[in-house]
C-alpha cells in the first residue's frame, strides 16, 4: 500500500510542476502582454471568484451533471439494446449500422440548434443532445464485442443445444462486457460535452441554467472570471464522470481481470 502511495506521489510531482509552469506562463503572459481582466483573468482570481459564487456554480454544475448523467444512462441502455439487436439480425445491422456511423459524423454543434428549434429549450433538449452525442461508442463497441465471440465457444454452445436466448445471455453478453465498459468510458466524457453544447443552445429554462449556458452568458457580461470558473467546473465534471465510470467498470470487470491481477502479483 505504502509502495503504491509512493509510486503515486512520484508520478504526481511532475504533473504538479507542469501545472505550476502553465499557471506561471499564463500569469506572465497576462502581466507582460497587458491582457485585460475581462478577456483573461489571473488564475488566482478565477479561484477566488469560484469560491465567491460557489452557490451558483454548484447549482449550475448539478444541473449539467444531471443532464449528462441522464443522457449517458439513456445512451447506455438504448445503445446496449440496439447493439444486441444488431448482433442478432444481420440484415438490421447491414441496414442501420451505416446510419449510426453517419449520426456520429454529423457535428453535434450542427444538430443542437435544430433540436432546440423543434423541441424548444429546456432540460429535455439538453438531455437529448447529450444522448445523441454519447450513443455511438456504446453501439460500436458493444456490437463488436457481441459479434466477435470465438468460434470454439459458439460451437460449444451449439453442441450443448443451447437456445438462442441462452447463447445471448450466457455467452455473447458476458463476452462483450469489457467492450461495453470501453464504450461507456468514452461515452461518459462525450455526454458531458453533449450536455454543455446542449446548454449553449438550449440551456435557459425556468429550472435554472447549467454550466454551458453560464459560460457565454458571463462572457457577454464581461465577467471572464466567472466564465473561467464555470469552464473549470465543467472540466472537473468531465473528469468526475470519467473516473466514476472507470471505477464502476473496474468493479464490474473484476471477473474478467481479477485473475490477471492476482497472477501478476505472484
Amino acid at each position, binding site marked *: 500500500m505504502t509502495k503504491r502511495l509512493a509510486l503515486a506521489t512520484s508520478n504526481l510531482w511532475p504533473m504538479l510542476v507542469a501545472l505550476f509552469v502553465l499557471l506561471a506562463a499564463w500569469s506572465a503572459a497576462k502581466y507582460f502582454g497587458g491582457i485585460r481582466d475581462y478577456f483573461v483573468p489571473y488564475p488566482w482570481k478565477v479561484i477566488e471568484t469560484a469560491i465567491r459564487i460557489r452557490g451558483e456554480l454548484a447549482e449550475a454544475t448539478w444541473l449539467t451533471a444531471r443532464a449528462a448523467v441522464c443522457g449517458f444512462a439513456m445512451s447506455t441502455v438504448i445503445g446496449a439494446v440496439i447493439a444486441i439487436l444488431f448482433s442478432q439480425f444481420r440484415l438490421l445491422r447491414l441496414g442501420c449500422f451505416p446510419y449510426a456511423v453517419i449520426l456520429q459524423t454529423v457535428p453535434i454543434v450542427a444538430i443542437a440548434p435544430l433540436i432546440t428549434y423543434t423541441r424548444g429549450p429546456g432540460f429535455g433538449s439538453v438531455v437529448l443532445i447529450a444522448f445523441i452525442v454519447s450513443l455511438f461508442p456504446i453501439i460500436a463497441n458493444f456490437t463488436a464485442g457481441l459479434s466477435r465471440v470465438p468460434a470454439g465457444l459458439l*460451437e460449444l454452445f451449439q453442441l450443448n443445444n443451447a437456445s438462442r436466448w441462452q447463447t445471448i445471455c*450466457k455467452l455473447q453478453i458476458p463476452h462483450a462486457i469489457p467492450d461495453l465498459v470501453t464504450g461507456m468510458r468514452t461515452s461518459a466524457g462525450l455526454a458531458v460535452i453533449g450536455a454543455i453544447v446542449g446548454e449553449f443552445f438550449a440551456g435557459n429554462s425556468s429550472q435554472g441554467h447549467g454550466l454551458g449556458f453560464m459560460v457565454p452568458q458571463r462572457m457577454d457580461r464581461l465577467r471572464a472570471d466567472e466564465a473561467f470558473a464555470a469552464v473549470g467546473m465543467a472540466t472537473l465534471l468531465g473528469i468526475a464522470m470519467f473516473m466514476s465510470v472507470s471505477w464502476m467498470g473496474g468493479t464490474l470487470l473484476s471477473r474478467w481481470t481479477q485473475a490477471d491481477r*492476482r497472477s501478476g502479483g505472484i
Partner: protein
Amino acid sequence: MRKDVLLANDRRLGITDARQLRLSDGPMDRPKIAYVFQDSTLLPWRTVVENIVLPLELAGKSGRQSYQAAEEALRLVGLRDDDAAKFPRMLSGGMRMRVSLARAVVTHPQVMLFDEPFAALDDLLRSRLNEEILRLWKDQQWTGVFVTHHVSEAIFLSKRVIVLTDRPARIAEVFDIPFEYPRSASLRTTPAFNQIVEKIVAQLRGGER
C-alpha cells in the same frame, strides 16, 4: 456390448446429431453425447466450477444438485476442491484440459467424442491424461471415439484403431488392439505394443503415396 460406432474424422463433418450412432441395444434415439475439443474452450469469466456446470445449466438444470455434480466431476478428473473457485487463466494448459474433461463427464454421457484433445500438450502430460481417460472410461462406462494423430496414444487408449485416409476420409484399415484393461504406462514399452505402432505407421506412410 457392440460398439460399432463409425464416425467421420471430425465433428465438422456433421456428427452433431447422434442418430447416426448405433449402440448396444439397437439404434438409440438421442444418446447423450459429450465433446472434448483441442482447445479447452472455457469461458474466461466463469470460475472452474461454473464452467463445469455449464452443460447442465444449458439443459435447464442449475440448482445445487448441478453444482454438486460439478464438484464430483472436478474430483473425478484429478482437480482439487480449492481449484473450483479459480478462473481459467490462472490454470496451466494441462489443468484447463482437465476442467474441459470434467465439463464433458458432468452430464454422464453415453458417448464421448474427443477431437485431438491433447495435441497442444507436452508428451509427459499427454500420457498422464491418457491414463486418466482410461480411468474415467472404466468408471463411467461411456463409448469413446478419440481422434488423434498420435499413433501410440491411439493404441494405448483403444480397443480398436481405425486408420482413415486423407481427403476424402475413408477407412483405410481397422486394427483390433488385443491388450487387456486396465492398461498401465509400462505397456507402451512392450515389444507387442511397438509392433502394432510399426504396423499402423506403415499403413499411414502407405497412405501418403
